[in-house]
């Protein structure tokens, strides 16, 4: 077990090195000149000499691998480089944004689970009941709604029609409700569908029939056996959704102006602030891969039959 975890961790590190190289290469071949963008945004008249001097100063003229090497070593020290936009270090910006994003993401993840676990299980147990039908329709539609649409519609109904919430989510807890909901609705729908399928599959297994025939009470089977056997799968389902959650939070943060890492990256894309974009991709990749590794390990602990 320990050896297998070690192998997985080494694999993960290699994966991240390749990711960092790809991210860097992408920035390298990207169209648009950051030096020019920077100068023109400062209102400097761009002449050839000034442009060349600025490129030199920003370190854009050195060879690819030298720049990549420096960047990579810096990251190992927690240094993500200097922002092209305002010459401030990138790491604290990313860190602040990440903290705000985690608040939003965890809130919506928690909300989604609170709704989808009971609904999914109940739906599976009472298959083809009225409740099941309604839950299936709602979760199907919820799953088909893009994040940005939900947030625009929520904004319209709650902020403008009912005037119940502030439109911009800076700071206050009340302002967090709509962004959290926007992220949670599609996610909860997806979880509900998957949990329902998983629990329904378990309920059809022979061991459930066996336990029933032995006279074990239904709720006892459900809580002790079915839930226990499903929990690993549910864990994987959640871990895989983290990626969607990350993409969604970029959209939601931009709409509600929540000062998270997603809004930061959208602002940086407009300004061609490459160090921030690279840092964002690397951090998101690391978190996603890390969470999936943890979920694999947990799965393995819960169910020793799981293959790696």
């Amino acid at each position, binding site marked *: 077990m320990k050896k297998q975890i070690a192998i997985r961790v080494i694999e993960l590190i290699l994966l991240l090195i390749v990711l960092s190289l790809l991210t860097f290469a992408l920035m390298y071949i990207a169209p648009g000149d950051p030096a020019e963008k920077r100068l023109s945004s400062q209102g400097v008249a761009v002449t050839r000499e000034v442009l060349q001097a600025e490129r030199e100063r920003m370190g854009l003229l050195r060879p690819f691998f030298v720049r990549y090497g420096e960047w990579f070593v810096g990251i190992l020290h927690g240094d993500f480089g200097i922002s092209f936009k305002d010459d401030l270090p990138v790491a604290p910006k990313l860190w602040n944004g990440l903290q705000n994003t985690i608040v939003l993401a965890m809130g919506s993840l928690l909300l989604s689970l609170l709704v989808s676990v009971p609904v999914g299980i109940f739906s599976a147990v009472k298959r083809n009941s009225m409740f099941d039908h309604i839950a299936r329709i709602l979760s199907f539609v919820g*799953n088909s709604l893009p994040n940005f649409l939900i947030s625009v519609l929520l904004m319209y109904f709650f902020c403008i029609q009912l005037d119940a919430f502030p439109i911009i989510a800076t700071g206050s807890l009340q302002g967090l409700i709509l962004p959290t909901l926007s992220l949670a609705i599609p996610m909860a729908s997806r979880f509900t569908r998957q949990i329902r399928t998983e629990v329904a599959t378990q309920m059809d297994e022979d061991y459930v029939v066996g336990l029933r025939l032995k006279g074990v009470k239904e709720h006892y089977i459900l809580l002790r056996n079915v839930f226990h056997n499903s929990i690993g799968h549910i864990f994987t389902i959640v871990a895989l959704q983290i990626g969607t959650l990350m993409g969604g939070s970029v959209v939601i943060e*931009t709409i509600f102006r929540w000062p998270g890492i997603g809004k930061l990256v959208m602002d940086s894309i407009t300004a061609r602030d490459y160090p921030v974009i690279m840092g964002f991709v690397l951090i998101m990749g690391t978190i996603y891969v890390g969470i999936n590794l943890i979920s694999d390990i947990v799965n393995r602990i819960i169910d020793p039959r799981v293959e790696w």
Partner: protein
Amino acid sequence: MKEQKHIKRRFILSAVVAVILILIAIFSHQLAPHDPYQTNAALIRKAPSMEYLFGTDNLGRCVFSRVLYGAKTTIFATFFLVAISFVIGTIAGMICGYYGGIADNILMRLADLMLAFPQMVVAIAVAGILGGGLMGAMIALGITMWTSFARLARSHTLSIKKAPYITASKLAGKGGAYILCVHVLPNILEPVLISALTQIGTTMIGISGLSFLGLGVVAPEAEWGSMISEARAYIQIAPWAVLYPAAATIITIVVFNYLGDAMMEYRNRH
């Protein structure tokens, strides 16, 4: 038996609606009552009327015509992207599965790499770096999308590779390309095609999402995501300019997702 019929009916119903939507997209230029790019200072933010069914937007453009034109952009961009990813993925997967070896190793590692990272994060970064535009958005989404088709095609190819009819064909002296086209492809097509069908909804969400962020279709081109993003600024005054494209997006995604689901279920029964 009754359930069979029920599933079949669901499938046919959603397929019919999907075909109608596609037809609307194809004939959007003929159906549109006004020029969707024609601005008119006298008709700014007019509420829906008989003349302008969905009202007009901030520049006095006909929202109904723009929604129709947007259908073409959104639906065709999605189909094109899914089709390209499907073709590339299937060919790559078949070759990898059939021949194996180093190429298989490299390609599958690449697919692992793509799968290891959140799709939308990659798409936002890539589209952002490429500087927006529909092409950029499609490349950004396609980079990760082909891998799921490749994996599926590969695993199905592996499962039939040792089948007697393939061996027979080999013994008859047929070449690899012939066997792949004539024997492998028809046998793996169905599951991969169904998977492509189920991806349409997600892809549509991706494309309109990127356009909404300003990383996909750019103004003044009519596309639902960018229309909603544009009209969001004055939603208090002219909610119709947001709500109609929003409704169009929701209906289209729901229909294609429903079709994919029905198809999946139909196949699982057989």
